[in-house]
């Protein structure tokens, strides 16, 4: 009964969304306030209806209601509770419902916290947002109904893919979706502005928090996915340039460009039509990502819905929204004249360079991802585009970006001089190069990747710190620090996020350049040295988990006679899903991770053991956390806070950069 009600709620929400697409648009066009005003209650009711529907599905998973097809296929009564809950979105139907839930949540947020949006713009934003939901309601209801019943419910389910039964992955999709779908708000604002024919500083200010929030969630989502791959897949890789990873990385890159160009719109009323285009592209790449994942067109380890009908449906959605909005853009972009003027050397130009580099690097990922398809269809060649291509073609752009970042962020708005921006940076540049040289000397004869990473990391982090320091103005230490403390949150956010970029850049280079690997057969009791650590395989046992059986090894690690840790790598087998997984044992450290995997028993009674020493592994995700934190700090800036203007506490503030 509950499931039928939930299904009905979804249909009702579909109808509401159709009304919300049409009526406010007409109202805004004709200037009928009543028609415009219906958008807000409609957005609220959509959220409530979808929320109910989602809660009902979650309840079905929690209570293991095997009369529902999705529950049968993706759950099992013995599964731990947290994975029953996360199982709600660990399958195609449920994840699309989660997508809708977040879509309506963002629509609701736009309706509830409008921050003084003009009536017509708000009506149009909500209408465009509703039109996106219409497409996805239709998709769910017509191709992937989560509430389909089974005529004869089985006694038990078929279990969730064991690889997905993991805390890192349980929360990876919701964050990614918050990011993907958050970009739908930027899209709605862009299309509404095109319909309205007007983009100004205020528009830039409204669209920025949504983009920032979406980018922050995408950052967290991608980092969670990468972290999961690192500890779960058993060889400590953290990024595979897999089509599905690329699908989330492309909107991230474009969103990063968008949130920088929105600053230019807000501060300087320039780059307007470019910003609109970026907003459309960002959401377009989100839809493309959804399409890639859902259709399984570009097969990868992730694709769990391999259904051409669904793929075609999403392709139509993609074509409609991207094609439609780009057509609108082509027709209306002319009215978006920019009136901000800036010199060749200025912060604006630097941000243009940032945008170009980010957009082109996104293009590299895009062409690399679809090239196998293009080559097969157009040239009849079956080929692969893998990590070596992306490493070679993508990295140079990131290096350029990192090189330009500190310089650009120190340039003055409107008209700057390179010499003035350069002067304080000389010290850091020399330090970066010196440290790189030192690294090169110490590591003796390994690749240049490590030293380059060191130099770029020091350069970017140093530039961000220097930026903060210079913002403190003149005067003594105390005065400066006080002023730095009082800087707008946006400045702090900028610094923290840029430091994060530097840290991640350094860490990625570091782990690739300096990781140590050891693969061997060890008998029980064997001891051996890897990179200064002594590993002893002291025991291998068989144990039983809640829904799996496991082979667990005990490996003692010492360094120069001192105990470091004892690690318990596992090899699990999930009987219901008939699937083995490896559970690496990782000792996290600030400077390095010890990463141990147990393999097959060998003929002579030994076990295959792999040991990795992974330097600076945690810094990769630490940098991502800093980036997300920077976005969060920026989000709490007074000028972005809803209704911030109302409270008039005067503080001796410095204008945000």
């Amino acid at each position, binding site marked *: 009964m509950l499931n039928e009600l939930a299904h009905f709620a979804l249909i009702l929400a579909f109808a509401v969304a159709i009304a919300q697409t049409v009526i406010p648009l007409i109202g805004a066009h004709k200037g009928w306030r009543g028609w415009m005003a219906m958008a807000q209650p409609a957005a609220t009711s959509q959220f409530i209806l979808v929320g109910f529907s989602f809660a009902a599905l979650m309840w079905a998973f929690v209570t293991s209601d095997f009369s529902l097809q999705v529950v049968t296929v993706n759950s099992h009564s013995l599964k731990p509770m947290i994975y029953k809950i996360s199982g709600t979105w660990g399958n195609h139907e449920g994840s699309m419902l989660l997508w809708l839930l977040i879509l309506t949540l963002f629509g609701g947020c736009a309706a509830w916290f409008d921050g003084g949006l003009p009536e017509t713009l708000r009506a149009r934003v909500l209408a465009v947002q509703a039109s996106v939901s219409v497409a996805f309601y239709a998709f769910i209801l017509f191709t992937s109904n989560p509430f389909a019943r089974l005529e004869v419910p089985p006694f038990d389910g078929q279990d969730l893919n064991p690889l997905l039964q993991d805390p890192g992955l349980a929360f990876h999709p919701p964050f990614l979706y918050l990011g993907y779908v958050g970009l739908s708000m930027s899209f709605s604002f862009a299309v509404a502005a095109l319909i309205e024919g007007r983009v100004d500083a205020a528009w830039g200010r409204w669209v920025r928090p949504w983009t920032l929030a979406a980018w922050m969630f995408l950052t967290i989502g991608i980092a969670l996915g990468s972290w999961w791959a690192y500890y779960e897949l*058993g060889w400590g890789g953290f990024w595979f340039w897999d089509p599905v990873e690329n699908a989330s990385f492309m909107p991230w890159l474009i969103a990063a460009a968008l949130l920088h160009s929105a600053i230019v719109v807000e501060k300087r*009323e320039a780059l307007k039509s470019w910003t609109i285009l970026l907003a459309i592209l960002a959401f377009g790449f989100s839809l493309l990502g959804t399409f890639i994942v859902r259709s399984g067109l570009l097969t990868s380890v992730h694709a769990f819905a391999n259904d051409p009908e669904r793929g075609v449906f999403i392709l139509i959605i993609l074509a409609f929204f991207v094609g439609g909005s780009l057509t609108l853009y082509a027709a209306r972009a002319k009215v978006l004249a920019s009136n901000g003027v800036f010199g060749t050397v200025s912060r604006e130009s630097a941000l243009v360079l940032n945008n170009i*580099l980010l957009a082109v690097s996104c293009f590299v990922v895009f062409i690399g991802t679809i090239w196998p398809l293009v080559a097969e269809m157009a040239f009849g060649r079956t080929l692969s585009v893998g990590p070596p291509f992306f490493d070679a073609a993508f990295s140079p752009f990131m290096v350029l970006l990192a090189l330009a970042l500190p310089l650009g962020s120190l340039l003055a708005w409107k008209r700057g001089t390179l010499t003035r921006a350069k002067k304080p940076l000389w010290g850091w540049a020399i330090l970066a190069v010196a440290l790189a040289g030192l690294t090169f000397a110490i590591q003796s004869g390994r690749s240049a990747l490590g030293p380059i990473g060191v130099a770029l990391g020091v350069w970017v982090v140093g530039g961000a710190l220097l930026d903060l320091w210079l913002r403190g103005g003149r005067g003594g230490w105390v005065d400066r620090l006080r002023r730095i403390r009082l800087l707008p949150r946006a400045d702090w956010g900028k610094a923290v996020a840029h430091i994060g970029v530097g840290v991640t850049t350094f860490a990625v280079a570091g782990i690739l350049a300096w990781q140590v690997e050891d693969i061997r057969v060890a008998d029980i009791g064997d001891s051996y040295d890897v990179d200064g650590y002594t590993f002893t395989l002291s025991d291998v046992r068989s144990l039983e988990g809640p829904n799996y059986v496991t082979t667990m090894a005990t490996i003692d690690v010492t360094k120069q006679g001192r105990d470091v840790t004892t690690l318990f790598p596992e090899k699990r087998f999930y009987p219901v899903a008939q699937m083995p997984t490896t559970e690496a044992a990782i000792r996290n450290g600030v400077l390095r991770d010890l990463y141990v995997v147990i393999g097959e028993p060998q003929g002579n009674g030994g076990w295959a053991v792999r040991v990795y020493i992974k330097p600076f592994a945690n810094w990769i995700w630490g940098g991502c956390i800093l980036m997300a934190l920077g976005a969060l700090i920026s989000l709490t800036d007074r000028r972005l806070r809803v209704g911030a203007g109302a409270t008039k506490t005067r503080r001796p503030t410095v204008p945000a950069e």
Partner: protein
Amino acid sequence: MRWLALIVALLASPVWAVEPHEMLDDPALEDRARDLSAGLRCPVCQNESIDESSAQLAAELRLVVRDRLTAGDTDQQVLDYLVARYGEFVLLKPTTQGANLILWLAAPALLLIALGIGWQVIRRSPARADEGLTEAEKDALDKILRP
């Protein structure tokens, strides 16, 4: 618990990425083998190199790579050998031949074009004095931001 161990041994025997017995004794040769196999795609897997794949075929290909290397092949000869048998599909790093030039050159070309356009737009922007917001716009902004 013995039956458990038995089940595990019987069912959960994925042949996993680089087994100790596959490895060559000569470290220089083994390094080359690892580098090569990281760039070769496992033909039956989804986007995995033979170095990281646990499929049976990947294991066999790892041995083939090592056999060729011990037989004295250069890296390129090993790649050619595998491409001749499995097609260019196995190369994770696409060649630069024919249409693949588009793949390799599209992004650098786009960068140059984008830089050119960006430069043009920035240069062309007239040197007229910057008015910033007009009074009317400022009022409207204030009204909106301070309700």
